[in-house]
């Protein structure tokens, strides 16, 4: 079956957009083809710096004819109706229609219509220009005197179906069978018959069409280069993805760095290499630290084997690192303490004041929290909070905002000495931003925890107070992340405090509890279990998590699962009887009225369980409390098996209802079991 090959050849497409563009092209082409009645046998799309490519296999030469029966009026219908039918069906004479007899409706006309299929190229000539004109580039542009928009100027459209050019044009760019290869290594344009021919000619013209192949080649060549010098390549998938969009044919070269730069903080070197220069970083396995080398992925195979390219890149890198060294030297001239007043000139948020204002709030809050998280030296926590944001005024953080905190730590170590007490403050400056993502570490040193919690709680309280809450579509101040940070620090550190006292106001408490519920759900707790446990009002994260965990655990036991059924049954009976009575069941269980052994047994068991639970809950031993509750399973089952609640004697009935009320009350000390699904 014939094949369709499409290449959209343009000036260099931004690396970050290429992969997505190939996916979009696939989807748009597939949708348009199926809408036009095609069922392609297969489709692949590709992206390289200067081209987007699609190859569609198994297309017919034309779409199938579509046959349709159109029912007309009865044979004795008025002339007008028959004329209308002829017009609508495109017939010239009623003799062209059949007469069909129906026992109920009588005789009527039927026209057999054939909508002839279209030649595939005709359909493609409509589909492709439409896709080009409406392509969803994140940013697009015009060029020259035209009005067409594309990501960068579009120069050529190769559109070949079954060896022939598909005839169309888009804003003066006529479809052709012409392509070209690498910008520097190619040898001009060439004609293409089909995909096989295209791939072979591209390859000869130094273009590796498949991005996965380019990536694999870069990785393999980089590793080979490193191994030859007993070095280790530091993997960087994000960079690999970007770099493979910058080269048509990758040529991997190792460059050398002046080892004296290794005095700079490794984070600075890595960012300079990676972000500014798009080099891969290399590690020396002997020292475990960075090696004074780097990996360049060049787009050209230089005639001198890449010597000049390696030298040129090394020089550029040296200039960059010299810049970094200039910042490093300059920044170290001033202590973080002396930088604090400058924070008053940095706006945190228009309505929440300067960063200086924020720092004053964090200092106070960190002081309050310090004891709660186990800080012995409260002054240290306040001091760390005071210095936490001071590196925002440094040149290095101005250049690399990603290094906030990291640089503050270095500068504090440089000026404040290596005493353990200063080390703690320096680490807290770095770690108070953590955790920044789900895989990031959570601070565990008390001073860092205090500052981290203070910073996040201040951010949350502030933005909630001015009504800047996250919405379904946006969270510009990363408040979800801040809330999750609070939750993780509190959970992992076992920090105990009433959240309502530190994070009150404007729905903030509910917001944090909701984040807790979401993260517990992500950890695998069933929604109904969370619902049941969260129904007990509480604002202590550690206690809430302990309750949820214990509940989930007891529900997995046979006694626990069966108890739920018993509790539900009791709750249902209560609900039904209360409805009947039009009043809530209440009262105290009277021992004298307990006639049956099963009800006496349940009552005794309840009294015993209640006292066990009292003890357990006093020490937050939720497992023990849940076990005591689960121990009621036998008495509850026996009660429902042998006792009829709805006794004829109203006093006995009332007493049994009171027993059920007691059962419900006891169970509700750990969870609202009515929220549980099933059972």
């Amino acid at each position: 079956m014939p094949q369709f090959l499409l290449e959209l050849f343009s000036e260099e497409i931004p690396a970050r957009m290429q992969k997505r563009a190939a996916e979009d092209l696939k989807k748009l082409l597939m949708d348009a083809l199926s809408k036009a009645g095609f069922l392609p046998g297969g489709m692949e799309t590709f992206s390289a710096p200067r081209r987007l490519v699609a190859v569609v296999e198994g297309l017919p030469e034309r779409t199938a004819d579509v046959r349709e029966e159109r029912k007309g009026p009865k044979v004795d219908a008025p002339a007008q109706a028959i004329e209308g039918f002829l017009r609508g069906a495109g017939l010239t004479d009623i003799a062209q229609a059949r007469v069909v007899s129906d026992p109920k409706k009588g005789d009527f006309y039927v026209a057999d219509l054939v909508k002839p299929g279209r030649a595939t190229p005709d359909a493609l000539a409509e589909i492709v220009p439409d896709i080009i004109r409406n392509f969803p580039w994140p940013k697009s542009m015009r060029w020259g005197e035209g009005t067409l928009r594309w990501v960068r100027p579009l120069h050529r459209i190769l559109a070949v179906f079954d060896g022939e050019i598909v005839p169309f044009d888009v804003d003066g760019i006529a479809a052709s069978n012409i392509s070209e290869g690498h910008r520097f290594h190619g040898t001009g344009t060439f004609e293409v018959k089909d995909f096989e021919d295209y791939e072979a000619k591209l390859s000869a013209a130094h273009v590796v069409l498949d991005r996965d192949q380019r990536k694999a080649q870069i990785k393999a060549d980089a590793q080979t280069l490193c191994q030859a010098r007993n070095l280790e390549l530091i993997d960087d998938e994000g960079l690999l993805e970007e770099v493979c969009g910058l080269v048509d044919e990758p040529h991997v070269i190792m460059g050398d760095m002046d080892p004296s730069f290794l005095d700079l903080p490794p984070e600075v070197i890595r960012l300079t290499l990676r972000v500014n220069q798009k080099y891969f970083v290399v590690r020396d396995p002997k020292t475990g630290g960075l090696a004074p080398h780097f990996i360049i992925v060049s787009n050209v195979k230089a005639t001198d084997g890449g010597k000049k390219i390696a030298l040129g890149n090394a020089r550029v890198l040296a200039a960059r690192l010299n810049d970094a060294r200039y910042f490093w030297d300059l920044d170290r001239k001033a202590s973080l303490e002396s930088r604090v007043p400058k924070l008053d000139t940095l706006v945190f948020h228009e309505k929440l004041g300067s960063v200086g204002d924020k720092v004053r709030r964090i200092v106070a809050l960190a002081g309050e929290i310090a004891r709660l998280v186990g800080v012995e030296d409260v002054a240290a926590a306040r001091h760390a909070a005071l210095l936490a944001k001071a590196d925002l005024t440094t040149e290095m953080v101005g250049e690399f905002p990603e290094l906030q905190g990291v640089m503050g730590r270095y500068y504090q170590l440089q000026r404040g000495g290596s005493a353990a007490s200063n080390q703690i403050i320096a680490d807290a400056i770095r770690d108070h931003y953590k955790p920044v993502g789900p895989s990031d570490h959570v601070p565990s040193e008390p001073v860092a925890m205090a500052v981290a919690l203070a910073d996040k709680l201040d951010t949350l309280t502030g933005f909630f107070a001015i009504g800047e809450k996250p919405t379904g579509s946006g969270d510009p101040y990363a408040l979800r992340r801040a809330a999750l940070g609070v939750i993780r620090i509190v959970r992992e550190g076992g920090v105990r405090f009433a959240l309502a006292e530190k994070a009150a106001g404007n729905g903030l408490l509910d917001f944090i509890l909701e984040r807790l519920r979401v993260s517990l759900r992500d950890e695998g707790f069933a929604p109904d279990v969370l619902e049941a446990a969260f129904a007990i009002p509480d604002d202590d994260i550690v206690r809430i998590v302990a309750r949820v965990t214990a509940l989930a655990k007891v529900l997995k036991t046979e006694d626990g699962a069966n108890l739920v059924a018993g509790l539900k049954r009791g709750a249902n009976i209560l609900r039904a009887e209360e409805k009947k009575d039009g009043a809530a069941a209440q009262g105290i269980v009277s021992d004298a009225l307990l006639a049956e052994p099963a009800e006496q047994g349940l009552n005794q068991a309840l009294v015993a369980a209640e006292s066990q639970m009292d003890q357990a809950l006093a020490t937050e031993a939720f497992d023990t409390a849940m076990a005591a509750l689960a121990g009621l399973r036998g008495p509850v089952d026996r009660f429902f098996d042998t006792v009829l609640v709805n006794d004829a004697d109203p006093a006995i009935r009332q007493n049994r209802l009171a027993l059920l009320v007691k059962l419900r009350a006891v169970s509700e000390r750990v969870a609202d079991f009515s929220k549980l699904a099933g059972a």
Partner: protein
Amino acid sequence: MTQIIAPQTAPRETPCSRALAAGKVPSFQDIILTLSDYWARQGCVILQPYDTEVGAGTLHPATTLRALGPKPWRAAYVQPSRRPKDGRYGENPNRLGHYYQYQVILKPNPPNLQELYLNSLYEIGIDPSLHDIRFVEDDWENPTVGAWGLGWEIWCDGMEVSQFTYFQQVGGLDCKPVSGELTYGLERLAMYVQGVENVYDLDFNGLGVSYGDVFLENERQQSTFNFEESDPAMLKRWFEDAERMCTHLRDKRLPLPAFDWALKCSHLFNLLDARGVVSPTERQSFIARVRDQAKGCAVLWAETQAPTQEEVV
């Protein structure tokens, strides 16, 4: 408007090729002369620097204003750029408070602008078979004049040697046709071509004069002025005067002199900013004031560029 001369690309002798043939590296001025020679051959008007302080070559009216309107235009020029905040007292080998940009504008952009640009590199001695030249996404935006465009930074062996932009809007108005704009960072390019690590070591003229001989003292003194000696109160007064002048000239529908005063506002703001006396809130308001003036000039200029009845017929 005179006809744009058709490009001619026949190889010919240039100051750079002469230096290379003599086994020498091209000097700083060889590069400038060669670029001018090359772009003159592409039909560009070779202009001289604009005589008002600007932060970037783009702000020369030959680019900012001429990018608007329907008339074809090709120009190339060197523009000294003043960035008071970037001054480093002559102590940083890569940062300068005053440096040169080579600026090219071709309107409408010819379809082979990338090739024309690469040929210009070839002419100044950068051989694409020995160097890794790449087009790396870099969208350009200058909110002060309401301008933006899409394009790339051009990397040569990892160094950004030029900025390549297809202008989409200036003064908030669509550019029709689209101009192609090239900005060469001349010092960096020359450092690359000469293999020099410190900008002040650049060979300026091939006859023993270095870039430092010409500019080092200037960097020192201007840095002292920018960071220590400028008078913020005076700068603020001048800013307000310049702003008033600009408004007045716009009222009189004189976009060209008005634009000069908008540029002065911009430079005075840059001086204040370097002096560290602009609070963040003030900063926003200063930028907005400069933007309003500059955009206003651009819009007014575009009105004067609309085709007359005669031209339309």
